[in-house]
């Protein structure tokens, strides 16, 4: 048996080559040189809308040499909330997750700060509205980048013909496509009179009083229009105030003009109400109109999405943003941030908004006048005022400005709609307020 000897020259050459290879290895960019990144995105209900996100992610991944995996997680049956809870408990899962409204705050301790990328994004796209700051920031730390996908305003979607015929209100004239609103007379009093007229005509407004978000959001906006808060920004109980009493009295009158079964409504009920042609108005993003376009075109061509009526303390409309947040346990935070910057480019945002048929709303002030809202039809301009292009209403979320972790409880337990129902069903004002105060005290536990 012969034994091959390694010469000194061979040894030096081999050592030099391996050292060079080791030193240069990180700079050789293979197909997935920058590692892996996984995303849990909200599963869009608009067919084809997910594809726009997928294309944008893939485009970025190819450029940055990152291996990506996208899971589209539905909010049907709160599957996304369950996944968030599971990943937070396991401290493992996706790198980026689409957090709806309250969930960025609810998981604030486990989310990576994105302050470093929010500055440049805001500089490019414009300032974000107050609700986005309220829900997305905690003690100066941005908990996620506002995502346009899934973000929505739940304003009135009115039937042009029925409102004109029964309430004498021309919603197109009040909110003309292409120009600022002329809605000074569009107040809560006008709204109540219109509700009464439409109720008498057999086409009542379809506003739910259940425990799901559509019902809570409308109730929240009307409460805010009266300046009514159950808990203030400092966490003090403010249930027993004149503003709350006024809001309850108003709601009691309004409920009298709504369909009798609104206490059992969920988030699908108002959509069905509009699409079936039974009502003159609902409070919803344009999803009901989009379904009507497919299933009841004669209804869709009479729909007009516009602003909320103003109350004594201002004009408020419910805005529900999503955030793309990075879990603190993510192993590729830099890549995640790079992707979020890419998804927040104006061109990317426009692509996603177009793919959603105008449903998705960017939270940035420079991006509320995209072409898609001017062009969507029928009728042309129906979505023009949907993104609040003239800032004539304050975008807010029900139960704010209470500290978000308390506000989330009031929101999830639908305390506002329950108060309205209790009072409407004959409970005394003071008893209703005492009940609500007790509930809110409970929500303050830490």
């Amino acid at each position: 048996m012969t034994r091959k000897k390694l010469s000194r020259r061979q040894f030096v050459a081999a050592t030099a080559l391996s050292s060079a290879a080791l030193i240069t290895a990180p700079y050789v960019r293979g197909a997935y040189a920058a590692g892996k990144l996984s995303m849990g995105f909200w599963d869009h209900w608009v067919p084809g809308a997910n594809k726009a996100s997928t294309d944008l992610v893939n485009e970025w991944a190819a450029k940055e040499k990152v291996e990506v995996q996208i899971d589209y997680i539905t909010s049907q049956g709160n599957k996304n909330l369950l996944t968030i809870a599971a990943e937070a408990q396991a401290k493992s899962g996706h790198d980026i997750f689409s957090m709806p409204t309250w969930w960025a705050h609810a998981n604030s301790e486990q989310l990576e700060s994105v302050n470093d990328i929010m500055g440049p994004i805001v500089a490019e796209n414009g300032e974000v509205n107050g609700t986005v700051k309220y829900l997305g920031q905690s003690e100066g730390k941005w908990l996620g980048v506002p995502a346009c996908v899934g973000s929505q305003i739940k304003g009135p979607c009115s039937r042009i013909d029925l409102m004109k015929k029964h309430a004498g209100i021309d919603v197109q004239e009040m909110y003309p496509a292409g120009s600022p609103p002329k809605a000074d007379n569009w107040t809560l009093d006008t709204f109540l009179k219109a509700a009464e007229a439409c109720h008498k005509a057999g086409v009542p407004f379809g506003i739910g009083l259940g425990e799901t978000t559509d019902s809570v959001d409308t109730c929240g906006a009307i409460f805010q229009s009266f300046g009514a808060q159950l808990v203030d920004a400092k966490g003090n109980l403010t249930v027993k105030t004149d503003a709350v009493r006024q809001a309850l009295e108003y709601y009691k009158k309004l409920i009298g003009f709504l369909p009798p079964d609104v206490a059992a409504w969920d988030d699908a009920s108002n959509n069905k109400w509009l699409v079936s042609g039974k009502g003159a108005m609902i409070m919803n993003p344009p999803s009901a109109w989009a379904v009507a376009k497919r299933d009841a075109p004669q209804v869709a061509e009479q729909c007009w999405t516009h602003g909320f009526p103003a109350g004594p303390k201002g004009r408020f409309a419910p805005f529900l943003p999503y955030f793309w947040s990075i879990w603190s346990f993510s192993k590729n935070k830099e890549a995640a941030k790079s992707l979020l910057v890419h998804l927040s480019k104006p061109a990317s945002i426009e692509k996603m908004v177009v793919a959603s048929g105008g449903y998705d709303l960017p939270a940035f002030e420079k991006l509320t006048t995209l072409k898609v809202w001017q062009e969507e039809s029928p009728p042309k301009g129906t979505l023009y005022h949907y993104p609040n292009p003239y800032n004539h209403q304050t975008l807010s979320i029900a139960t704010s400005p209470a500290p978000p972790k308390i506000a989330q409880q009031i929101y999830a337990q639908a305390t506002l709609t329950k108060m309205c129902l209790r009072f409407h069903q004959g409970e005394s004002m003071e008893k209703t307020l005492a009940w609500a105060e007790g509930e809110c005290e409970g929500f303050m536990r830490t």
Partner: protein
Amino acid sequence: MADVAFQQGAVSGAARTAKRSSLRRALKRKSSAAFLMTLPLILLIGVLVIYPALYSLHLATLNKSMAKFVGFGNFEFLFKRETFWLVVKQSCIFAISAVIFKALIGFIVAHFVHNVPANKQRKWRGMLLVPWVIPPAMSTLAWLWLFDPSYSAFNYTLSFFGIGPIPWTGDAMWARFSVILVNVWYGAPFFMIMYLAALKSVPEQLYEAAAIDGANWWQRIWYVTLPMMRNIIAITTLFSLIVTFANFDIVRILTAGGPLDHTHIFATWAFRVGIEGSDIPLGASVSLFMVPILAVAAIFILRDVSKRGNEA
């Protein structure tokens, strides 16, 4: 030294042989074989049932932000909440009334099926089991459409008789009735099939003897059928009580706990508080509150069953 070394080897060799033979003996024992065969299931239960149960116990002892141990603090908090006691009351109304009606309907239908000629029984058994074999989440969706607040098929039908519209899910009492009705519809076939099996095991001679003694139809049921079915009735009731107390899907789909929390039961309220309200420790505490109630029920019922077993 050599002797010692030899002896050491002999001792260790003997020990090895003894160990081998005792292992062989242990493996040959029926109980060991049974244990090994059930081991995969035990492991599965350990991972999917015992670990989550212990983990939820751990969660229930933490504060809202899950950063501090609070012992029974969450339970103390719950006991002061009006809504919690409403949920306790409703869970009891829901579970007890649903189990009573399921047992009653199951018992009656089992008798009907028992009296159907043997060659036609299979068809009836199959048809009557349909509600139980359809996943409840799916069948409840169909019920939701039947009860829909604005487009209820029931109300549409009733309108021809000048009745209604009934607020099936919009009024507290009707909503409670609706969720119990769907639970009874779903669970009665289980009672029926269990009772049918029990009826078939009652010896025919007992009925003959009762007939000779002049017992009427009711006396035969009271003195023969029911005593012979007692164990099955007890076990079925216990099993159904546990499952009904822990129900989630029917209430969640049909009413989501509304209106005004009047149909919430433990599981749906735990979900509302824990997942939708992001207060996981409190949600865990709500769901764990069922454990002592069901444990007490299980102890009483199983003790009764084993006592009768010993008497037999």
